[in-house]
């Protein structure tokens, strides 16, 4: 870990903070009934998106999932336009037509979050195919969960990417649950990374609560992809601090689905706390400096909420815009 520079470490921490505070604010707004639709928070999984995206260039591509806010922020997205999109406002990334599950920012290579589990994986393969054909050294990353690893699109995507040696990195965020069903009830293997072998590609398991560890694994996968060495499947073991979706308690009506041992493991593995400890222990920054950083992030998030609230609703005439080019 010593080879990661202090500036990278602080950058990782700051990106994670931005996601954490953004998501906490979104959870609060949803609870107050201020946001339409469904909201799936990335709290607890920040180290995965941030660790991977820190290893990417601005012109590299990512695709994301229904739990996608963190990926947009990790890739450098604008939280004002994100928040406005969550409010359904015209100033949002998608003019209020995307919503929480469908945020994209082409300018930073963010090819879109996807509300269909496994649906975004093939798109990253296509972007990688295009990069290879055009002779650039861009890479394409798709984020997806353990649930998506049981979708057909996952298997078709891995097979094609490996067969054509495409610069694609498959990042499985294994948080232990496909919606409300424990992953161990949905597959007869412990490690999704094992599936890489079936397609003839590299597979690696990493502690998805440790941003530095994720970053280092991602750097290696990116280097391999850029050099023409083909795809990698990274399985990041992580934890979902909240539920599948905000507001699920109302539907669960007291039923419990989280496994006690998983909850206990999660309590000791908060990615922000891990990173905070590392930074202070290695004297990269003081607790006071990190608190200042945190306060600045909170201010930015509050200002994003103001921006969203003060933005206009979409014009009714915009309804038919962008149906076709």
């Amino acid at each position: 870990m010593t080879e990661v520079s202090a500036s990278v470490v602080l950058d990782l921490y700051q990106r994670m903070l931005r996601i954490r505070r953004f998501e906490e604010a979104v959870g609060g707004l949803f609870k107050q009934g201020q946001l339409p639709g469904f909201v799936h928070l990335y709290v607890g999984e920040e180290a995965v998106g941030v660790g991977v995206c820190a290893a990417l260039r601005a012109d590299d591509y990512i695709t994301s999932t229904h739990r996608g806010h963190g990926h947009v922020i990790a890739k450098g997205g604008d939280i004002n336009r994100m928040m406005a999109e969550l409010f359904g406002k015209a100033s949002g990334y998608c003019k209020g037509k995307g919503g929480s599950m469908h945020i994209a920012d082409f300018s930073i290579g963010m090819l879109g979050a996807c509300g269909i589990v496994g649906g975004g994986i093939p798109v990253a393969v296509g972007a990688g195919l295009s990069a290879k054909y055009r002779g650039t050294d861009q890479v394409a990353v798709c984020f997806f969960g353990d649930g998506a690893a049981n979708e057909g699109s996952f298997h078709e995507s891995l097979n094609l990417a490996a067969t054509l040696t495409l610069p694609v990195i498959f990042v499985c965020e294994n948080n232990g649950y496909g919606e409300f069903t424990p992953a161990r009830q949905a597959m007869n293997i412990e490690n999704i990374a094992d599936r890489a072998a079936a397609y003839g590609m590299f597979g690696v398991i990493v502690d998805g609560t440790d941003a530095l560890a994720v970053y280092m694994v991602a750097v290696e996968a990116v280097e391999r992809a850029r050099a023409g060495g083909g795809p990698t499947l990274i399985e990041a073991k992580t934890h979902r601090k909240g539920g599948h979706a905000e507001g699920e308690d109302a539907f669960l009506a007291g039923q419990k689905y989280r496994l006690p041992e998983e909850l206990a493991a999660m309590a000791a593995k908060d990615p922000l706390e891990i990173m905070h400890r590392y930074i202070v222990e290695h004297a990269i920054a003081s607790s006071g400096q990190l608190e200042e950083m945190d306060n600045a992030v909170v201010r930015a998030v509050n200002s994003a909420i103001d921006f969203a609230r003060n933005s206009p609703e979409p014009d009714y005439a915009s309804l038919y815009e962008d149906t076709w080019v």
Partner: protein
Amino acid sequence: MAEYRYRDALRRALYEEMKADERVFIMGEDVGAYGGAYQVTVGLLAEFGEERVRDTPLSEAIIVGAALGAAMVGGRPVAEIMYVDFAALAMDQIVNQAAKIHYMFGGQFRVPMVLRTQQGTGRGAGAQHSQSLESWFVHVPGLKVIAPATPRDAYGLLRAAIHDDNPVIFLEHKGLYAVKGEVEDEPFVLPIGQAEVKRQGQDVTIITYSRMLGLALEVAEQLTSQGVSAEVVDLRTLKPLDYATLEESARKTRRVVVLHEAVKIGGLGAEISAELSQRLFGVLAAPIVRIGAEDVPLPANLELEKLVIPDAQRLTAAVEAVMRYQPMPTNGA
């Protein structure tokens, strides 16, 4: 002017587009060495190489998904799904992804992707290789749908589809590949969204598309002996539908029959019939009649297969019915 088979006209379109624009590439099952299940892409691998004529695994979802991803970042893929029936394996990528990307992300991405596939009966290929599924795609906002009936239309519309910045479903018909027709020597592009009157007539309009155009023209010719002058309109593009041309013809003849090979229930004929009836309620001399396939899976036996889809006898009977229709007398008349 030269005579082309439908499949050769399609190949000419692909060849010219690939020559003109290196962003255009082909991918699909057996499109390379084998030349495509219906031999449309024969010779293109030798001409353009495997980077641009890509044989893929038998994986429809990733064929469409990879084409989509490539299209979003600047490619112009022409993906082939060997049989439209197999599109069922790729419906998420077609319906939830490709069709939605431009709108859902606020216009940030273009999806200049063509999905070539073929459908229809005529070979006794059975229930999973003979369907006509255009209604599935027409029902989804964000897709364009083309179904050419002649070599000339196949050529001009495939070129248009490749030029288009939207996802286009290009439906060929397995029974048309060997059909010959005239195509101009000079390259040209036909507009998407324009129907064409393939036969002028005064008494009744037959609206159809794809392989059923041949049946419509044949029956229209036979009807002259009964003194019936039938106009035949070929939709060519199923979405967006050219209602202006349909309405103009229907206004003139005041009688309409809609004919297609797809299952009648929930088919495009219902849509066209409802829309024209609404627009021309007071003008039409008879209710619009639809003819389509029976509501059964397609049997493999060729004689049974023929029973499922419209034939000359049924089309003739339908035209005769709208010709002799008498309105019910109103109360007190």
